[in-house]
């Protein structure tokens, strides 16, 4: 209840005079909730707010205020970059520039053919090689990509590979060996969250259930062989952006995480084996305070789900790491410099929300790949917030703010009811099949579109204060020769490698997959023999099947 209402209901004359006419009849946030004029202690009282159970100190259950006691006083959020384009050589040069600018963690952006399991010379890859990311079809490409970048000089190396996640994991294992590194010396962090592809990102290859089990192969392998790696980062970003809004997106994300965990438990692992290896990638880009609330309340919910639902005992299972991505409400092509402000606001929410790892978008990202200047601004944005203005001098500075905690409490309630509905449908896979997630997304997208057209949702420079003919930054162009070069390279490699060894290892992958065993060891041998992504996916499609598209509206 708002402070004002509280004052009115008590038997005391309301000293607040009727306010002057406000700019809007109602202020509503992206979650569809009304935002009150004022929040105060009465609201928290109505929620039965109690410091120890709702917040706890940082580093203590339920970790609302942070996963460890010192947070940024000890270690600032990692400066992360998601980058890659064209050929591995191009991207290698870019990576070195990024590292020189201060990037600590690299996530390889893969082009669409790679993400979808097509080699550069596949007919489906035509026109797409090296566009949305770097073209990687074999271990050789990855070796070139990280030439002169030892994996142990990075905080983490990884990729947003999803459907092909375990294949890329195998490549990084092989790469580490090529670089002469013991696995304990470096960290691989993958996205490998295939469940969200079916509803929000669209780069799925196989049907949902076998794809989910394939993803858990990577998780299971890491538990045994590299327990400090991050084989799955469960994402809400794409689901939110597609239309669901951050509250629903977080609920679906947690449901997806439970799906992976349940599969691991089915295989005989314990929750304390797997939960510490997982990470979340959360997002809220419409509303500043909703964002901060989202990050904090998710930690609280995760802690409870792990301890109370799964019976996890290890604090590392309870305290979930979160990474973020600051991109502002909607990067726009008009007045792109405005995006710097939006991205800054988004970055600030990551800091105030206590995230471990983050990247800032580049202001020209709406128009394909970012320019050098935009990338630098992005990195500097994170660095400025980290080092200037005293934001990182204390832990969870907004903790206890009436509005923030009210938002957290409200969100927790909403997330819980959505998670319950998903459970009733049989979990994440059931919710996808019942189209619950897809409907939530498409209804949310329609709502946002309508709100945008009615100017209830605004974008400065677009639907309010529009301007004409802004100086546009040069759009980054990829060189058409890239596709030719990558095609030539993969075809040459196929000629040069030990064909018999490749066939042998691919057969082993097939046998493993068919027998329902963990395919990671076989994948590692195959990538070391320079089997291509296309070849491996072709085998897996045989066994797992091919994704069947969705027709409903």
């Amino acid at each position, binding site marked *: 209840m708002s402070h004002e209402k509280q004052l009115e209901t008590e038997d005391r004359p309301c000293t607040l005079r009727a306010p002057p006419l406000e700019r809007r009849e109602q202020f509503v946030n992206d979650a569809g909730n009304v935002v009150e004029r004022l929040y105060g202690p009465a609201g928290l009282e109505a929620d039965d707010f109690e410091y120890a159970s709702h917040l706890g100190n940082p580093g203590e259950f339920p970790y609302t205020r942070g996963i460890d006691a010192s947070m940024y006083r000890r270690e600032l959020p990692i400066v992360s970059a998601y980058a890659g384009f064209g050929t591995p050589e191009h991207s290698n040069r870019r990576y070195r520039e990024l590292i020189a600018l201060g990037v600590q963690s690299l996530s390889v952006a893969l082009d*669409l*053919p790679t*993400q*979808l399991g*097509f080699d550069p010379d596949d*007919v*489906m*890859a*035509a*026109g*797409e090689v090296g*566009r*949305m990311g770097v073209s990687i079809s074999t271990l050789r490409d990855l070796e070139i990509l990280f030439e002169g970048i030892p994996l142990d000089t990075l905080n983490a190396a990884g990729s947003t590979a999803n459907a092909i996640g375990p294949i890329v994991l195998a490549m990084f294992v092989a790469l580490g060996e090529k670089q002469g590194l013991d696995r304990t010396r470096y960290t691989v962090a993958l996205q490998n969250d295939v469940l969200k*592809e079916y509803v929000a*990102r*669209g*780069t*799925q290859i196989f049907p949902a259930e076998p794809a989910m089990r394939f993803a858990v192969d990577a998780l299971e392998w890491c538990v045994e062989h590299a327990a400090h790696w991050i084989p799955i980062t469960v994402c809400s970003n794409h689901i939110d952006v*597609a*239309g669901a809004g951050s509250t629903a997106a977080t609920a679906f994300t947690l449901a997806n995480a439970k799906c992976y965990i349940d599969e691991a438990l089915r295989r005989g692992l314990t929750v304390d084996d797997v939960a510490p290896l997982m990470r979340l990638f959360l997002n809220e880009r419409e509303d500043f305070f909703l964002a901060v609330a989202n990050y904090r309340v998710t930690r609280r919910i995760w802690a409870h789900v792990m301890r109370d639902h799964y019976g996890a005992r290890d604090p590392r299972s309870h305290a979930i790491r979160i990474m973020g991505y600051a991109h502002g409400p*909607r990067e*726009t*092509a*008009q007045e792109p410099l405005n995006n710097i402000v939006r991205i800054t606001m988004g970055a600030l929410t990551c800091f105030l929300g206590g995230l471990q790892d983050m990247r800032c978008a580049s202001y020209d990202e*709406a*128009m*394909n790949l970012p320019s050098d200047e935009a990338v630098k601004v992005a990195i500097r944005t994170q660095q400025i917030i980290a080092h200037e203005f005293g934001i990182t001098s204390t832990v969870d500075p907004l903790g206890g703010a009436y509005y923030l905690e009210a938002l957290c409490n409200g969100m927790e309630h909403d997330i819980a009811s959505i998670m319950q509905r998903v459970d009733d449908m049989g979990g994440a896979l059931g919710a996808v099949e019942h189209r619950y997630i897809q409907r939530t*997304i*498409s209804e949310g*997208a*329609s709502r946002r*579109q309508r709100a*945008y*057209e009615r100017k209830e949702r605004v*974008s400065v420079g*677009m*639907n309010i204060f529009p301007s004409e003919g802004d100086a*546009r930054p040069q*759009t980054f162009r*990829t060189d058409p020769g890239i596709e030719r070069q990558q095609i030539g390279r993969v075809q040459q490699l196929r000629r040069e490698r030990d064909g018999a060894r490749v066939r042998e290892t691919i057969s082993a992958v097939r046998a493993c997959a068919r027998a329902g065993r963990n395919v990671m060891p076989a994948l590692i041998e195959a990538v070391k023999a320079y089997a291509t992504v296309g070849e491996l996916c072709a085998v897996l499609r045989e066994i797992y099947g091919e994704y069947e*598209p*969705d*027709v409903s*509206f």
Partner: protein
Amino acid sequence: MASTSRTFRSDAIAQPERRGRVLIAKVGLDGHDVGARLVARALLDAGMEVIYTGLRRTPEQIVRAAIEEDVDVIGVSILSGSHLAHLSKVRRLLEEQGASDIRLIAGGVIPQEDIPALRELGVSRVFVAGTPLSEIAEYVAGIVRAPAPTQPG
């Protein structure tokens, strides 16, 4: 024998002379179909029949579908930057198969500076991200009302 008594039976939405048919396609490999689906919805709301082809269509599949479905307009959504290559292929295939009267429009992530080239190769309109859906629906309705002269054969 499409019965005009439908006008009387249903609540008299003015039945147009011709019911517009539109193919909404995603070409290339990108998987973001939220925009395409919103446009399809908007066209449905405007009374048109929308054939939605789904993700990852090749230009060949799109053109064949457009001809079989006898559409007035093909709307292509591309977010992966491969618009010039794919759209010129679609246009070329339409010409080759005697369907040059089918209009081609595009939307998605398309830089302003590529629009003249796209218009040149035969894309009638490019709708940048953020265009109100009503504008797109009106444009398509305009094409349906005054179709281009048909090609012989």
